[in-house]
Every structure is written in C-alpha cells, then in structure tokens.
C-alpha cells in the first residue's frame, strides 16, 4: 500500500529529474573513465617505449685509413662487454649495416670494396649519461674514433608525449567534472526555482534549510551512485572488448592489462559522488538562502 511508504518526496515529482541526473552523470562518468583509461594505457605504452630505447645504444666505428673497421668493431665490443653496465655488445654484419643505411644510400650499387662504418649494438642495464660517458672513454682508449650513439632525442620526445598524455588523461575528466558541477548547480537552481511554493510551505511547516537540503541531497545520491558505478563498469567492459577484439595492434592489446587502469577507474564513481554531493550541497544552500531572503 502506497500510503505506508515513507514521506520523503518533499521536492518535485522525482522521476524526471532522477532519470535526467542518472543519464547526465552516467554519460559524464563513462566519458571520464574512457578518457582516463585510454590516457593511462598510452602512458604505459610510452613508458615501455622509453624503457626499450633507454636500454639500447650503439657504437659507430668510422672508417679510418689503415684500420680494419670490422676488427676495430670486435675490439670495441669486447671492451664494451667488460663494462658491468653493458649486458651485451653485438657488432652488426655488413648486411645488417646495409639494411640500416638503405634509406640513405643505394646499397645495391655499393661494391664490396666500398667500406662502411661498423656498428656495435649495446644492450644496457641502466641509462645514465655519466656511466655512458665513462663507457665511451674506456672504449675510445682501445679503439680511437668510436662514437656512442644514444636515443636522447627520442627519449625527450617520448618524455614530452608522456607529460601531455598524462595531462590529457586527467585533464579531460577534470573538464568533465567542471561541466558536471556547472550542470548540477544550474539544475539545482532551476529545480528550486520551480519548487519555490513547496519550499516556502516546508519553511512554514518548520523545515530548516538543512532539512530541505538533506532531502535534496538524498534525491541526488542514489541516481549518482548507480549511474557512476554502471558507467565505470561499462567503461571496463569497453576496454575488455577492445583487448579481446584481436586487432593485432600492440597498443590496443595493452587494454588487457587491467592493473594499469582499473584502480584509477574505481575512483571515478567515488569522485563523481563527491563532486555531486558537494556541488548539490552548495547549490541547495545558496538557493535556499536566496529563497529565504525573498
């Protein structure tokens, strides 16, 4: 029997505003979760690339008259491997060097007699400029003219990409939160203006602003909670679907690593409820204070 239910629907017929709030919060949470998850996956990928290029360097042994570059490369590799920071030093074969130089030189037309600089690939334990400087000095003492080539320019670009990706990953949800706050403030103001006679009556029947605000907050809590939890689950399902889509793209496949984003995504409902409660509270108190004055 309906008469037995609690008397709590003080403000406005609830359904329309609750459904609107549910969809608005749900959509915003979903977009925020997708943006955050995608950003974190990108950051993870960038970190992987950075780690990969940081563990690699190469030694270039230029052609010098009277020196066999291949023998010099072997010497440089042995010298490098004596260094504890070098895991492996592998001189490249002439075919491998030709393949690397192919974009710049028409290597097919090069005769066997054309001497190419030698290259030694190094696998490093840590990327440290000072350690690398010591390493190259050490090698140069045994093989003069050795040049160490690192990937500093790429590392810098990747660092920059990482910073921007992180900024976007958290900035977009931040912007969404700002829009959500604005929408909530506006919606609460509109709802209260529309409910003015009811609020006046509630005041006359002995309701304090806090009592009315509490009723308003109750109204927002459940739709916000449901919408944000559902939206986050939907975002997790989206990442799961992407991971299982078998696209063959390594970046998309990283979506299978839930530990990268799941923890952060779990914060989306918490943040959205906090934002909703705080913004609704501010809006309610402001609207009620304005109504009380008039």
């Amino acid at each position, binding site marked *: *029997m*309906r*008469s*037995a*239910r*609690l*008397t*709590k*629907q*003080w403000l*406005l*017929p609830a359904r329309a505003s609750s459904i609107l709030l549910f969809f608005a919060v749900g959509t915003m949470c979903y977009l925020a979760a997708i943006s955050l998850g995608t950003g974190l996956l990108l950051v993870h990928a960038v970190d992987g690339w950075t780690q990969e290029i940081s563990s690699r360097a190469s030694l270039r042994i230029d052609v010098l008259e009277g020196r066999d570059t291949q023998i010099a490369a072997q010497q440089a590799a042995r010298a490098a491997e004596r260094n504890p920071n070098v895991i492996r030093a592998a001189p490249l074969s002439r075919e491998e060097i030709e393949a690397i130089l192919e974009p710049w030189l028409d290597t097919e037309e090069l005769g066997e007699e054309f001497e190419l600089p030698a290259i030694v690939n190094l696998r490093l334990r840590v990327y440290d400029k000072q350690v690398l400087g010591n390493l190259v000095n050490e090698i140069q003492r045994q093989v003069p003219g050795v040049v160490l080539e690192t990937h500093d320019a790429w590392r810098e670009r990747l660092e920059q990409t990482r910073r921007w990706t992180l900024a976007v990953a958290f900035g977009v949800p931040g912007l969404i939160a700002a829009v959500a706050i604005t929408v909530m403030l506006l919606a609460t103001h509109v709802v209260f203006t529309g409910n003015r*006679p*009811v609020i006046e*009556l*509630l*005041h*006359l*029947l*002995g*309701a*304090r602003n806090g*009592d009315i605000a509490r009723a308003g907050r109750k109204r927002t809590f459940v739709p916000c909670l449901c919408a944000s939890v559902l939206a986050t689950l939907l975002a997790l399902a989206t990442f799961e679907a992407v991971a299982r889509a078998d696209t063959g793209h390594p970046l998309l496949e990283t979506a299978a690593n839930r530990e990268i984003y799941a923890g952060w995504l779990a914060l989306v409902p918490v943040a959205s409820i906090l934002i909703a409660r705080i913004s609704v509270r501010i809006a309610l108190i402001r609207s009620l204070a304005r109504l*009380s004055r008039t």
Partner: protein
Amino acid sequence: MPTSDVLRLENVNVRYGDSAEVLREVNFTVPRGSFHFIVGASGAGKSTLLKLLFLSLRPSDGEMFLFGQPVHNAWRSRRVLLRRHIGMVFQDVRLIDHMSVYENIALPRAIAGERERDYRSDVRALINWTGLETRIDAYPPTLSDGERQRVAIARAVVARPILLLADEPTGNVDGKVGSLLLQLFAELNRLGTTVLITTHNPVEQDDIDAQLVRLERGRLILPGTEAP
C-alpha cells in the same frame, strides 16, 4: 509550557516598508485552551495578524511572547523551530500536489525528523477522524474543496500543536461543510488545543465557546471595548 498564556502581544505595530501601519497598537493575550474568532473586513489586517502569530512576520514595534518566550527579536532559525508547535491552516490550503493525502498530513512529523513508524498510527487516526479513509492515497488535485480543507486541518494538528491558527478556513466551502470544519476545530479545542481562526463572516455555532475579536483598520477590538 510553564506559562498559562500561549501568546501575548504588547503594543505591536506592523508595517510593510515605509507604508502605513497594517496593525496598530495591538495588545492581545491568548490564554491556553481558548478559542478565538478574529473577525474583520477584507484589508483589516487579519492575514497580517495571522502571519505575525505564525512567526512568518516580525513586529515593526512592540513585543511578542509565544509560550512565554520573547519572539519579537528571535532569529529565523529559532522562529522556524518554534513554528513546529503551531499548526496552521492556510487560506489557500497549500497542499503539495505530488504527495498523497497521507503524505501531506504526515509532512510536519517527517520534517521534524520522526520515523514513519512513530507517526503512522497518528496519521491514520487523523485520516479516520476527518473522514478521509477512502481518500488516503488520493492526490490533492483530485480532492473536493471540503476534502482539501480537512487534509489541511489534519496536517495542521498532526504534530499536536499547542496553538492552532486558521486563516478563513470556511471561506471556500459551502455552509454545511463550513459547519463540519468548525466542529473539527471545536473538537480539537475540547482536547486542549488553543484555536484562533480569522474570518470575515463567522458562522454561528452554538456549541462553540469562542471569543469574538474584531479587527478594524489594523486595530484589535476586544470584547467589551470600543474602537477609539
């Protein structure tokens, strides 16, 4: 409450902004358990007096005591809480359309923070007392004027107020329904509630022991006194 007077007004004037006084030099004491009709023509200041007694208006001058406590300078939050001891039947009834009869009547108790199980039987008893058993789940737009008035009366007394105010409660209903409503007020008064009703046309009720107070151009004229 320790005092035997529910309400006391001393030299109270009320004016809106810079306009002339709507109530002038009002001295009025309402003893506990009394029944007053305040009679006056339109514009005499009846609604203003009721707003004043309901604490939704402050006196411009003078002193006002409710349940023995001074309220003329009371803060808004204190007035709101004191208002919980006053029942009010508004002239325009003021029911909430999206709430059922039951919910409208229960509203003051819910506002006071009571749990439904604590007031459910009281609300049902009032619904039976006002003859609204079959309309318990109905919404105000579907009620007749008389039914709406009865819901308003039930809502006004559900929190067991010490003072019950009614602004022209019989104004929008026919004589028969008006008489029935007055019987409800009389019954409440017999149970100990102090009742104060404003009306421009008091219905003769032999079985109501009420004092008639006239309000003329903002001045309250008590029985046995003449207008200055």
